[in-house]
């Protein structure tokens, strides 16, 4: 019987297995292969040692990614909680509203931010009209982080919401009955119970933020190159697959570490949602 189900399982899993071999395992193999070879195909560590040059860029990417992730968490947590408290009809509408911007292409949305933020843009035109004058917003680190927060906020709200919607109201009531004030309830009941959502949210925002390249080019004016920009340039402009692959490899290892770290401290055996 056992054997039978396992055969069935295998059959069901096979399309995904094939998919992952073709589009995850094989590309990973290529990334590793290119990382340790030169353009002639000979083994070398040169690509890895060359990376020292990009330390600042790596650090900047991580710094921007961390900032964007923290801002997303701070913004998303109350929103998710509020959505979870509403009636189920309202919940559906609100979740749809959170998703709404994602129906439009990411590149177009980012490009529009350029028109909003620039010196002759919508905000500054308005500020000039009311006499405040132009405030320089585009081509600053703030604009890049804003772009990240704007684009990745739904990835934080959704896992938080899905955890909070499942939260048992009676647990909160019990805490209140036992004399916990509001802060106690949030700190000792809601926060620990929503930890799996926080963990997935952090990962889902941090990973794309660290590796993004379009946002920094359009909103940072190319003056704040992130590691994603460097990778893109190696493949698109310089035709240096080897260096591009080695940067990607190091980035992947970094992300893997931060994910392992996150899972370790947020969910002890509880597992993440999504």
């Amino acid at each position: 019987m056992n054997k039978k189900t396992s055969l069935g399982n295998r059959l069901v899993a096979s399309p995904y297995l094939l998919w992952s071999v073709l589009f995850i395992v094989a590309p990973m193999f290529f990334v590793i292969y290119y990382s340790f070879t030169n353009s002639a195909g000979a083994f070398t560590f040169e690509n890895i040692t060359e990376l020292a040059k990009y330390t600042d860029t790596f650090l900047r990417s991580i710094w921007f990614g961390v900032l964007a992730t923290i801002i997303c968490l701070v913004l998303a947590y109350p929103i998710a909680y509020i959505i979870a408290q509403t009636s189920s009809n309202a919940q559906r509408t609100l979740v749809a509203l959170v998703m709404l911007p994602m129906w439009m292409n990411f590149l177009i949305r980012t490009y529009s931010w350029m028109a909003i933020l620039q010196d002759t843009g919508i905000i500054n035109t308005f500020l000039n009209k009311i006499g405040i004058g132009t405030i320089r917003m585009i081509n600053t680190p703030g604009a890049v982080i804003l772009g990240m927060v704007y684009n990745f906020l739904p990835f934080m709200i959704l896992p938080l919401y899905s955890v909070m919607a499942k939260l048992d109201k009676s647990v909160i009531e019990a805490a209140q009955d036992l004399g916990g004030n509001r802060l106690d309830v949030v700190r000792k009941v809601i926060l620990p119970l929503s930890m799996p959502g926080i963990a997935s949210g952090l990962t889902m925002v941090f990973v794309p933020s660290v590796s993004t390249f379009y946002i920094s080019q359009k909103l940072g004016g190319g003056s704040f190159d992130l590691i994603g920009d460097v990778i893109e340039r190696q493949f698109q402009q310089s035709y240096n697959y080897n260096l591009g692959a080695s940067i990607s490899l190091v980035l992947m290892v970094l992300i893997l570490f931060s994910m392992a770290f996150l899972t370790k401290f947020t969910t002890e055996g509880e597992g993440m949602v999504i």
Partner: protein
Amino acid sequence: MKKILSIMLALCVFTVPLLLVSAQTDVETLRGSTLTVYNWGEYISDGSDGSLNVNKEFETRYGIKVVYDTFENNEVMYSKIKGGGVNYDVLIPSDYMIERMISEKMLQKLDFANIPNDKYIDSKYKGLPYDPQDEYSVPYSVGMIGLIYNTKKVLDAPTSWTALWDKRYKKEILMINNPRDAFAIAHAVLGISYNTTVDADWKAGAEKLKEQKAFVQSYVNDEVFNKMESGESALAPYYAGDFLTMQENNPDLAFVYPSEGVNAFVDAMCIPTSAQNKAAAELYINFMQSPEIALANAEYIYYASPNTAVLANEDYSLKDNEVIYPDNASTLKTEIFSNLPPATLKLMSSLWDEVKTYEGKAITEENVEEDNSATESKTGLSSNTKTIIGLGAFVGVAAIYLIYRTVQKKKRENV
């Protein structure tokens, strides 16, 4: 009189197709096949604004389906072709890239018997260094890069590339986001050939570009249109033809060929070795240089035409345009890019990465205020400290939480 005219017309209608058929008997066999074309963006008359849709015209005339793709610069095009997996029949890269592709055996020789319209190409554009025997390419369009500026923002008309290093226009300067063109401007200022293979020259160019970074508002490709037209930026190096497009939307814009010299380029049509439909590709190249099609393209893209039939045509509205056909063309210092050896290319990419990731004087809000005399080490350190603080905070929060968690757990266990 009328009768004669109509007879003549009728004759024309009948004989022209006959002539075409007799000249190229194999055209019919191509009917129903597909031709893939890879060209720069916004670089063909595409039917918008009442212009002639050149690709559609080709399709109806020959019954060959045209699949048309665009690229944003030569390097992107090269990477795509070199990477494999795609097949194009016609490519329209620039001079130095053609030279590189010839040297890497990525292009095939053209059969000029199938491209009789090559006779219209101005002799100025024959035998150029990138294709000395004229075996691989037929010029499509030519031009020069120059300096575009907004007369509302830049009061004294610039004559030199050094305007792009002018403190007064800090954060209103756009720079071209492409290493080859960016280095060429730095080299022009330094009085070095764009095609230098001396490492020190490239390093000097990189230093010059780093120095400029504090003044640069943004590194741009196509965004230059939006930013110059809206008045967001004061100065930008870009192509003469594109300036005319921008000027239509913002009459305050002006254009100059800087005195240090400019890069002149020739974009030419060629056929890659991986082409699937060479016969149709040659037909297309010939078609593109036929006088009326070349005229439609020249009118639409605003770049200078290498086609003598276009230049001689009375209807050509840009014939006397001083921007694309400057009067002082002979005194203008121009240099065409040539292909750089692999070691120099590698150095250039690496230096360009350095320029782009350089933040010694990067424009953060603080050091714009405090004049740009801030030293490299100072700001470099501050950014590092920021990062360390950020990472430290992250790790700290994590550690505190872990401890908190274990303590809670212990407590619970004790209870």
